[in-house]
């Protein structure tokens, strides 16, 4: 039977000692993967796992990764909403692992939204 071993959990608990674990409460960035039927069918789970790998790789402790339901834009799935505290949330659409990786590097870490994959930037222009 494959089961989580108490020793393994103890080990990660130990390894976390001494580090300030922001995940306990406060966070800087929240990545919300839309996980409705439409999102799941379009590959939302892969996007979630791509972000998980990136968070792990970066060692960041101030990023929350979570999911929500259908946002009503099913043709744009897979979709995420990225909230950086202090800035307006950005919706990214029609994602794949490669785009998700770039969003992580440039927006989550770098602080610069990736206009190429955003649902919209601004509203309209006169030119």
């Amino acid at each position, binding site marked *: 039977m494959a089961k*989580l071993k*108490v020793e393994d959990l103890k080990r990660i608990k130990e390894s976390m000692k001494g580090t300030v674990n922001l995940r306990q409460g406060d966070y800087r960035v929240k990545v919300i993967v839309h996980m409705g039927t439409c999102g799941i069918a379009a590959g939302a789970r892969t996007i979630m796992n791509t972000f998980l790998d990136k968070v*792990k790789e970066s060692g960041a402790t101030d990023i929350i990764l979570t999911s929500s339901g259908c946002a009503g834009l099913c043709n744009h799935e897979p979709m995420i909403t990225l909230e950086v505290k202090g800035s307006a949330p950005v919706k990214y659409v029609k994602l794949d692992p490669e785009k998700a990786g770039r969003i992580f590097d440039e927006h989550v870490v770098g602080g610069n939204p990736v206009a190429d994959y955003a649902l919209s930037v601004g509203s309209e222009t006169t030119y």
Partner: protein
Amino acid sequence: MEDLSLHVLDVVENATRAGATLIEIEIREDKSKDLLQIAIRDNGRGMDTHMLKRATDPFATTRTTRRVGLGLPLLEQAAKEAGGHLLIESEPKRGTRVLATFQMSHVDRRPVGDMGATLTTLIMGNPDRDFVYFSNLGKEEIEVDTRSIRRELDGSLRIDDPAVISLIKELFKNSPRN
């Protein structure tokens, strides 16, 4: 949906939106009966008889009956295509139980897929809910109970911490996906 693990993800997401705090997922294969069973039980708000009748009708869903969208109709379709069926039992305020059966060797049975990714995605998306998972695919039994993991972590780490999620994922590394 490409595989059964995505159906499970979808139906369990529905259960969390129905207010369930504990969701049990059981994937059992019985080679002697050529049978694959997926059972999902939640303690959410449940459905009355009227709603239950319409649960697998994709077009009967309105905003007030948000509990069910396309999730159950699609799972029913997947089961029926593979010589199986879908059974739903529900009681208002008590919860819902969904049982999908499949003929294991049926040519149209969709692959099981990555149940580990489904479970960890559910935990990350709903860290305040509890999940109990059991499967016996390919002779390997896997058991995950977030209640006991939480007890063990004792508040030192969140259940959705990447380190914890990785440990859970690790359990599934030998689990068959076909």
